């Protein structure tokens, strides 16, 4: 069976006139199984976000093959959902209208989309907020609307670009657990980009560690711990060991990138 999302030898090089080409991503190979939750961890500038843009079809690769459901990604596809770092809600639309935005763009049947939206909003604890406007919600609630919106057209793959980075630490933890709950209910294939190790360990089945400049995969770690996991899970020996392993890889990557700084 084909992977839900597959990168094979994918490279992305930015070329601009008068400057030497920059390797954003070099020779990435990664296969994500159907229903798998993969976290991509790496320092800033390691090409994590470029990876998502490539999978979304918003960025053209320089080399390699990207496939979703066995089909080459050349342009955006309707069966992919995306969550950005900021909620990116449209302030002139109500919560429900924002969630239905993909249905409007994709011309999906309104009635079915509304039913799905209402169910998802309830699942995300946003029942009763359907007719509110984004400015009436807290940051965490806005991001939950953003996640629900990404799921409303029932995509196969959900791509998340540091979705909780703009939230405070407590909201962030609550949101992680929320996401796990939604994922367990809907079982989407998720690629979750983050620079937060605990978040990755808490949420993912698999953690891919990337190095910066050029962005390459330097480790691919399994996290088979049972679900649902709560915040206490992070203080268990297994999770602590996994976090340590990730940190070690990141430190080594950092040392390769900037040998002068990392000796301390």
């Amino acid at each position, binding site marked *: 069976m084909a992977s839900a999302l597959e990168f094979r030898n994918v490279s992305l090089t930015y070329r601009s006139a008068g400057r030497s080409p920059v390797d954003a991503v070099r020779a990435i190979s990664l296969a994500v199984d159907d229903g798998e939750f993969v976290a991509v961890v790496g320092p800033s500038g390691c090409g994590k976000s470029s990876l998502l843009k490539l999978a979304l*079809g*918003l960025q053209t690769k320089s080399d390699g093959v990207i496939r979703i459901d066995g089909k080459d990604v050349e*342009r*955006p596809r309707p069966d992919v959902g995306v969550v950005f770092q900021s909620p990116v809600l449209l302030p002139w639309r109500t919560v429900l209208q924002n969630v239905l*935005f993909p249905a409007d*763009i994709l011309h999906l049947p309104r009635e079915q989309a509304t039913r799905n939206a209402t169910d998802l909003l309830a699942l995300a604890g946003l029942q009763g907020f359907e007719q509110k*406007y984004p400015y009436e919600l807290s940051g965490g609630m806005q991001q939950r609307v953003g996640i629900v919106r990404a799921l409303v057209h029932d995509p196969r793959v959900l791509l998340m670009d540091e979705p909780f980075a703009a939230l405070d630490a407590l909201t962030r933890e609550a949101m992680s657990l929320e996401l796990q709950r939604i994922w367990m209910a809907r079982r989407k294939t998720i690629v979750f980009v983050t620079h937060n190790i605990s978040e990755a360990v808490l949420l993912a089945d698999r953690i891919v560690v990337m190095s910066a400049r050029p962005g390459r995969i330097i480790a691919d770690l399994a996290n088979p711990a049972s679900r649902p996991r709560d915040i206490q899970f992070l203080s268990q020996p297994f999770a602590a060991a996994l976090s340590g392993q990730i940190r070690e890889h990141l430190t080594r990557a950092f040392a390769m990138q900037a040998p002068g700084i990392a000796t301390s």
Partner: protein
Amino acid sequence: MSETEPSAASLSTVATEERVGLWQRTRPALDVMTSIVVVLLLWEGLVRLFDVQPFIFPAPSAVLRSLWLGLASGRYVAALGVTLTEILSGAVIGSLAGLIFAVAMVSSRLVNRMLYPWVVGIQTIPKVAIAPLMLVWFGFGIESKVLIVALTAMFPVMINTISGLNATEHDQIALVQALCGNRMQILRHVQIPAALPYIFAGLNTAIVLAVIAAIVGEFVGARAGIGYLILQANFALDLPAVFSLLTLLGTLGVLLSLGMREIERRVCFWNRRS
């Protein structure tokens, strides 16, 4: 709020606080009223004291009398109708043209390059200078005035709409693109709504300029309208009439501007708190 949630303070303190709240709320309006009344009284007093002739500088009482006579006879009302028609139809035509040009220029680099020199060129010419030309082409009727108003109103709307359409958040556009949305959908669902506060900034400028343009047009040549009456009254040295017409014109401008702001408040309701 101290009024809605009184603390454990004694009743007399609460009452004082309420009085202070009321005073603070009505204070700005009261200041404005006081200023108007004082200036008018001073004006009236000075005119009477030095016995200034009405054809040099009329007293407020004379202006008010003239205003009442003009309104009661229906002359001012008819003129107001003409000028208001010129302003509103010109502003609507000009704003629509500005919107369409802006969308075309933002959507296509080719259109942008072709239109830009003309836009800048025509914009730098004062519309007053074009007014006589419009008269030659479109006559003394309402059409020439509507066209002058439209030309004047077009530019602020166009310039503001262009910056609004270009100021859309990049991620909002990426969201539509990631959902396979086309250029029309980006424009319709994201760029135009996001540009609305900018568009209204343009419309607010346009409506004020439209009043000026209509009067300028009537000054250059007309058979009816407030500007036409002002010229007539001026020739007749009927200064109370000139002043009363100016008062009427000022009120009209303020009302149009306030009306536009009210529409903006309702349309861009989501922009108030951001």
